[in-house]
């Protein structure tokens, strides 16, 4: 291997990425913190340095508290359930039934949709009067009549999913689980495929049934994958924005206000860039600490 001029060569190879990385990733991390120390309105030509005032205001801001709790609620609703669903789907794919390639495509299809398509699609599904979801729920309630179509037309369940403070966030959570399940499914699938077949066959020989084999062999070997997926799910869920922005705008009555949405409203709705930047950093610290916690709890113990 050529070692001559290797530093210079390396520099040339690294230069394009390095410049982009420094300007658009590295510097912003510190610049953003700098901005958060100012009272910085979009129109102001001379932002005012205020030290940690923004942070102090955030911690005493009850709307931020609401956003934080709603985000935590969303994370708790989507990360564990979503991962369980992803794992279940992956296990199903591992069975290698006829039609598995079709199943794989079907399960992953939602992932390639952009958030506005998903939001638009589900807004229609959740429509109180004409939504498909309410219709089938109504069918459920009128089960007998629905089995014989035309006998009695089933009534829509008329649940105002997105305009009722109690159902709005669960509705968004359900939609988000649908949207993301396929992504983690592929990762779990890769993890499942990596489980050495010999171990499973040995367990089978020892008389273990499928469920026992799963718990004794597969699940422990899946630990790193599970940890990775849970951590990424939590990080991703804590940043939920597009869904709440498009479907409910944080309403009704702040029931779907999430931290990133709050940050966007502060920064680009109320033009307070300094305050919004501080919100972002508080979220970052919270998520980071929670991630460390997850590592402690879920990391592989040997």
């Amino acid at each position: 291997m050529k070692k001559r001029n290797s530093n210079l060569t390396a520099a040339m190879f690294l230069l394009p990425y390095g410049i982009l990385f420094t300007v658009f990733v590295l510097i912003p991390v510190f610049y953003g913190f700098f901005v958060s120390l100012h009272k910085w309105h979009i129109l102001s030509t001379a932002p005012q340095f205020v030290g940690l005032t923004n942070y102090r205001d955030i911690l005493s801001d009850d709307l931020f508290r609401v956003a934080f709790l709603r985000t935590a609620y969303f994370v708790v609703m989507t990360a564990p359930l979503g991962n369980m669903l992803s794992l279940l789907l992956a296990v199903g794919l591992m069975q290698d039934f006829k039609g598995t390639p079709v199943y794989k495509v079907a399960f992953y299809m939602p992932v390639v949709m952009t958030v506005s398509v998903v939001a638009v699609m589900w807004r229609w599904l959740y429509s109180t009067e004409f939504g498909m979801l309410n219709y089938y729920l109504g069918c459920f309630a009128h089960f007998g009549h629905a089995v014989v179509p035309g006998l009695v037309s089933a009534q829509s369940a008329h649940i105002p999913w997105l305009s009722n403070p109690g159902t709005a966030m669960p509705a968004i959570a359900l939609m988000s689980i649908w949207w993301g399940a396929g992504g983690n499914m592929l990762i779990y699938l890769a993890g499942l495929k990596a489980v050495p077949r010999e171990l499973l066959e040995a367990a089978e020989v020892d008389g273990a049934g499928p469920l026992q084999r799963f718990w004794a062999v597969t699940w422990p070997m899946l630990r790193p994958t599970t940890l990775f997926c849970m951590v990424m799910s939590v990080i991703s869920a804590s940043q939920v924005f597009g869904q709440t922005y498009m479907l409910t705008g944080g309403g009704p009555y702040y029931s779907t206000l999430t931290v990133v949405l709050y940050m966007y409203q502060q920064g680009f709705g109320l033009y307070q860039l300094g305050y919004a930047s501080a919100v972002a950093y508080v979220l970052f610290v919270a998520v980071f600490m929670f991630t460390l916690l997850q590592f402690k709890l879920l990391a592989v113990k040997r």
Partner: protein
Amino acid sequence: MAFVVCGCGRNGESTRAAGPVDVVFWNGFTGPDGTTMERIVRSFNHDHPNIRVKMQIIPWATYYDKLTLGLAYGGAPDVFILHVNRFPEYAYYNSLNCTDDLVAKGGLDANDFVQVAWKAGLWHGKRYAVPLDCHPIGLYYNVDLFKKAGIVDQNGNALPPVNLAEFLQDAKKLTKDTNGDGRPDQWGFAFTWLRTNSYTFLGQFGTGLLDKDFRRADINSSQAKKAMGLMADLVTKYKVCPSPEGQDAWMGFQTGKVAMAMEGVYMLASLEDQKGLNFAGAVCPMFGKKHAVWAGSHLMVMPRSITSEKRKAAWEFITYLSDHSIEWAKGGQVPVRKSILDSAEFKKLPVQYQFSKELPYVVYEPPVVPYNQIVPFADAAFEAVLMHVKPANDALDECARRVDKVMNRQ
């Protein structure tokens, strides 16, 4: 003529352009308003061959974001509309062009303006905006329903209520359960936009979102709680008004299911299209201790950094709009030029003329710099009280707390 030196106005040299001067005009007048404004712009362009006004209509929902980003980072228009309550923020951050010198040179007579609107264009004593209109809410009422219920004067004309007692009396007569299913299908009254209705009630009880100095929240004062309580009572106690939740109250009025509604003069076009609806306008009844109604205003402004050549042209356009605000009024607005208000042509516009009688006691929302930050708290509180999401006192106290937090940060 005294030339007022205010340290404002452009000093740059203007170069004579070869063709007409382009003036980019932004506003949020979608729908029929837009059509009216388009007509006025066309006639201006026709009368002024050396100026070409290019209008861009941006729906209000995204208007201010686009405007702010344009002002900050490039791409701002030459003339744009600001609502009166958003004006302080833009004035505070020095984004607007001072027009004292232009007013002093003539072209607009300050004495011809309705003072409350004219004063609204001032910031720290200097003028940055010219009001185009004042749009209060007023009482729309269904003439046929009134006549059917026998609420008429001695000539048999429908007689709208002027105070709380008459209002309740009339509304009760007009709330009917015509198909016997136990629920009224005709209502005497319905709340349309909660914000405007609530500010009206609050104003009539001598209070508002902020106190008289615009420093602290007043929305949880005893008077405010009385005002909001009365509004809630219309639904629950007097039962003359449906719960606002999930209601399209305006559609109810349009289809003759609601007899009275308090809405803006700008909603006129949507009623004129409604075939078979026999409606009229009147001043809002006095529910509280004094006369007061919510009003908004559209202000015409120029950005601070406008070139001197465009400034001249833009100012011509602004004065033209004001001078011809009778055309704007025809679309469903109340002009703020006294000469136009007194004209026979304006008095022929039935609803606009009636609503214009409220001008002496219109109330704007608090003209404070952080208005945009506090108005969502107020909206949420109004919703919470009238839709029973929270106990009224809690909602108002919570709103006051949040508003005070923002006001204290200023």
